[in-house]
């Protein structure tokens, strides 16, 4: 029965503290959320903790959720996860300060076909290796579709700062992609 529930009904049942509905919420979103958390934190254990925290928080605040269409429940939960991930980044870690100060980018852009050949595990690994700030900006802008203005507000940096951080993150990723492709050619 619960598997067939739409998002609105599922949220309603969850707000009534229906255990079965809460389990269904976990089954639907846990894996996606875990992937998202891993993208932001880069660490498997931290990601799992964050995913669970996010789900518990979402269930706690499910009364405040407003259904706006298909996908809005996951959108709402993922925003909780992103906010929590950014808070965790600020709280726990020293920001790794990268040593490449130049933004100037003369690394050739990889083609879509070249990137398609790269296993997703490799791409995830490279993103996890980015500094906290670069990883956050890259995820927020390229994957989750936030604007530089929003990113600036979320991370406490200027809009230009966000643009420049993204440029550095892209450069670092491109560098890794090109090196990988060269190694594959040999």
């Amino acid at each position, binding site marked *: 029965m619960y598997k067939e529930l739409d998002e609105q009904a599922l949220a309603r049942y969850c707000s009534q503290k229906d255990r079965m509905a809460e389990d269904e919420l976990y089954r639907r979103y846990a894996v996606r959320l875990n992937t998202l958390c891993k993208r932001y934190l880069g660490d498997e254990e931290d990601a799992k903790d964050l995913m669970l925290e996010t789900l518990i928080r979402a269930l706690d605040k499910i009364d405040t959720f407003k259904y706006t269409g298909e996908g809005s429940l996951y959108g709402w939960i993922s925003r909780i996860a992103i906010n929590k991930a950014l808070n965790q980044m600020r709280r726990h870690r*020293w*920001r790794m300060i990268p040593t490449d100060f130049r933004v100037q980018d003369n690394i050739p852009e990889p083609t879509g076909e070249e990137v398609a050949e790269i296993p997703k595990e490799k791409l995830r690994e490279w993103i996890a290796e980015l500094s906290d700030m670069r990883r956050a900006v890259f995820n927020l802008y390229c994957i989750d579709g936030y604007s530089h203005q929003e990113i600036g507000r979320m991370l406490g*940096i200027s809009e230009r700062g966000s643009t420049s951080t993204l440029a550095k993150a892209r450069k670092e990723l491109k560098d890794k992609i090109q090196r990988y492709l060269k190694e594959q050619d040999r």
Partner: protein
Amino acid sequence: MRNWEDIVKDKIEEPEGALPESVFAEFRARREAAAAATAPKRFPPVWAVVPAVAAGLAAVLLLHKPVVPEGNIQITQQPTAPVTVVTDTTSVGESEQTTPLTAQAVTPKALRKDNVKQQEVTTVGNTEPTEEIVVTQSEEETVEPEAKTDETKDTPGNIYSPFKPEVAPARPVKMKVGTAAGMIAGGGLLAAVITPFLGSGMVMDNAPVQEIDSPGEPGAVTPDPMKDELIGSPSFCFPLRTGLSARIPLAERLSVTTSLEYSLYSSKFTYTLSGEKTQLAHYLGVPVRLDWTLASGRWLDVYIGGGLEGDYCLGATLAGERTAKDGFGLSLLGAGGIQCNLTKRIGLYVEPEISWTIPSESHVLQTYRSDNPLMFSLTSGIRINIGK
């Protein structure tokens, strides 16, 4: 043709494999724990009323005190004819039948009038604070309240009462100082304590050998023993600097730092007659720097930077008397610093700084800075991180 970033997005957004069952079990356990933490009380709220009422009654019984202190009740003889005798069986007058005791409340006006008019009888239990309770025994002694009224001044707004007004004991003002405010105060205190400590004992005798006429007007003059003239070399204390700073981030590591810095330059001059005199010059400076963060953590930031500082001399004194002061000055500076973040927004900073004061005609005072245009200083203070 799709952009490489879109392909990266599609690839890394793909959900990974299913999570182990243990994670689901952990989810359930955490959910139960969270639910237990917010579970409503099992007993109905009405049961909470019973102990509350009982506690309230107990408090009333234990803490209730009569408003009128016993010491202020005066016993006077009751005039026999005009006074109505109160036959209150519970009152204190019951025991003496020949000289019955009555309780009366006497208003301030009545106290100043004749005894006959003041015989409005009330019960003993009337404890209105503006009324006096008088238990009379004989007519002769009724002068006592009148004598008392004479002591009170007839001024508007003054309520006459034979009772001494109950003055509530002065309660100490309790001030709740929030954590942030405490930290700011602590930080300021720390900065204030550290700065003089760093500056003390660093008196430098590095003034030019030539003798000068006055601290503000250098010039070679032979000292006249009959005049109070400057002799010897002045000694300069290491400048004390403290400030309130703000940092505005521009990029991940780049930020603009500006502050309002107070500097104190102390110099000592020796005169032929009056002996040693201390010159104190107070400056207010506004440095604007571009800082590069080398390392940043939750508690600590390490950075270097460079920029310009404009300063203005607020005033100068020599042995407590005002003297001529410097005009506007400009200097180039480079600094490294460590900032300890007390909260997300507020931090304490310590900055070793090297600065070069641009020579200017408006500098008339002889200070450590005029003697060492390229100087090293240590600044500490409180910083507000804007938009961190």
